[in-house]
């Protein structure tokens, strides 16, 4: 997977792109690449947010948040704030 994923590119996901994202997520799972899982799930969340699908957004935000927590990366806080804003998580201390 050489393509750089960015939120902008994937803000609205076309079906063939969604398939590529799905494949990338599976590959990242297989490699236990936590940072990449955070990025990819966040991209999926962004795209669902643009579509206005709150449940799907929060599903993907949750996935991204959990892997960010596991990896101990600062982005966990940002993802947590977004979930909290939707009323979907307790704020992190």
């Amino acid at each position, binding site marked *: 997977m050489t393509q750089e994923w960015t939120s902008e590119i994937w803000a609205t996901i076309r079906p063939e792109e969604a398939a590529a994202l799905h494949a990338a997520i599976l590959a990242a799972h297989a490699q236990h690449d*936590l940072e990449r899982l955070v990025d990819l799930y966040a991209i999926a969340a962004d795209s669902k947010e643009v579509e206005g699908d*709150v*449940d*799907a*957004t*929060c*599903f*993907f*935000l*949750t*996935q991204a*948040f*959990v892997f*960010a*927590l*596991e*990896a*101990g*990366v600062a982005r*966990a806080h940002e993802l947590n704030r977004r*979930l909290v804003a939707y009323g*979907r*998580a*307790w704020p*992190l201390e």
Partner: protein
Amino acid sequence: MNKPSSLESVMTSVNRANGLPNAHYIDPVVFAEERQSVLFANWSGIGFGKDIPEAGDAKPVDFLGVPLLLVRDQDGAVHVYQNTCRHRGMVLVDEPKNIRGTIRCPYHSWCYSLKGKLRAAPHVGGVGQNTHEDVKMDELGLITFRSHVWQDVIFVNIDGNAAPFDEVHADLIERWQEFDKPLYHGGIDSSFQLEVKTNWKLAVENYCESYHLPWVHPGLNSYSRLEDHYNIESRGKYSGQGTLVYRQMQGAEGEVFPDFDDLSDKWDTGGEYVAVYPNVLLGVQRDHTFAIVLEPKDCENTVEHIEIYYAKSGEQTAGLDHMRHQNAQLWKTVFEEDIFVVEGMQKGRHGPMFDGGRFSPAMDGPTHNFHHWVATQIETGRAT
């Protein structure tokens, strides 16, 4: 089950006492009783600080069937958790690893901080919904066992009812306060394990006494005579042996390991070897210490985990690597020489007419002291 045997004959003076009855070495029912009354009710050794040197290091340990997780947090503190997720009881960590952020359960990804707090329970209130009013995060942290690190050994009190470690072992801590200093592990070959077909108590008993030295360790005794050893006995607390003629190892150029700082003269040629009841064996000398954790596998099998430490780090004394290697070999030889006796005593205890044995009143005080302590723990367990 038969009525438990009376331990009266163990509790009397060493001159008249018998050792613990055979059942305490070969009967799985008694083993289960001792697991609770002796090993879980006291401060047992389960590992070493050196096994989790860095912040975030986590190591699973099975202690008599209890899944434990040793963790070093970001502040350097050691924690011993039950290695069991508060959700569906999945084992959290199945091999040693470094945890960068949180401990994530591999089943449904509940996440715990290194200090044991539940930080996320994803989708617990439904998909994309990470809260539920009935799932109280602050009540669902990891179960923590009381633990204490001394001489780099991680001790744990499983049943939670023992007096604080510092209190239980106050005398010994005081006796050895000159060795309450940073210890530097000797590196890879200063760490070895011996699998021994014996009940763990026989390893303690053999370690405590110097009576066997001239017979089992003739090499050791060629420069360390029996009369240069003394018994260490503290009723209800600890026991072991000391030597008055410890001689430092010297390299070909006369090089020696650096001493621990500020030791009193006693330690110029002194060495002490003490069993920290129930299952930890420690030795201190002017220039190195060692620690042995006895891991009881079952009634008749034990793994001895042996680690050697020095007063200065390997980096500070890089020129002494060959001597650290040699010293580790020396100790390994000594501990291996003891295997046939602890395994032989185990076999001997299948002789149905063995009565626990009679002690040498002069030589076996430290062993009897341990039996007396074990019997006391068992009686206490039976009384409650």
